[in-house]
């Protein structure tokens, strides 16, 4: 999975990591909790509640990716694998994990635990 360039702004990468985590968490909650409850337990309230929350989280994540590409923080072609990861359950957690490494590389103080 391609990630943003090393020269990317660490503050931006931290925000992107947070959005990736929120997006991935809401997708997992929607697909593996709310949808089974709707179809197996006839309880549609979960989908009605988590669906819109995931929609907004997805929007925020995609918006941030395009903002980063527009600001030149990373190349546009590198944004597309990150867009695709938003559709795959658990892939967002991998993106967030890799962004943590990227943040560490961009801000050495943080990677040293200081």
């Amino acid at each position: 999975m391609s990630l943003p360039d090393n020269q990317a702004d660490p503050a931006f990468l931290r925000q992107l990591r947070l959005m990736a985590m929120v997006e991935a968490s809401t997708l997992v909650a929607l697909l593996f909790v709310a949808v089974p409850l709707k179809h197996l337990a006839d309880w549609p309230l979960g989908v009605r509640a988590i669906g819109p929350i995931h929609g907004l989280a997805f929007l925020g994540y995609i918006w941030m990716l395009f903002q980063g590409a527009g600001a030149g923080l990373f190349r546009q072609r590198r944004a597309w694998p990150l867009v695709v990861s938003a559709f795959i359950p658990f892939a967002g957690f991998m993106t967030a994990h890799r962004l943590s490494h990227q943040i560490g590389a961009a801000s050495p103080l943080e990677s040293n635990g200081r």
Partner: protein
Amino acid sequence: MTANLYPWIKALHVTCAMLFVSGLICASLLLHFARTSPDGAVARALAFRRWDSRVTMPAMIGVWAFGIAMAQSVGWFTNGWLQVKLGIVLLLSAVHGMQSGRLRRASATIEPIPGMNWLPTILVSVTAIVVLAVVKP
């Protein structure tokens, strides 16, 4: 309760949509003129970034929040016209993200900012959204 609120949610949705689209059009014009006449472009981009973050961005969130609330209350999510409309609004949101990033660059450098002019895409998308929302084919 939901039926009573519907006209208010719709009014807020339309208000946010107008503010969002006007912000998108202004940003694309500003970025276009920053390329063609760079004098004072940094100051203009800096001033417009404030508008973008205080008005256009909250309007975009409002468009989605009120739109989702409205569609959920009426049960439109399975309708084809709404699914196409959602795709187009997602495209416009991505364009806003892209333009917001370019404004960030334009407010920090006097160098011309490369990138395509999104104005035709915005105008075609807005026309399609209005047709889908009004005609509901």
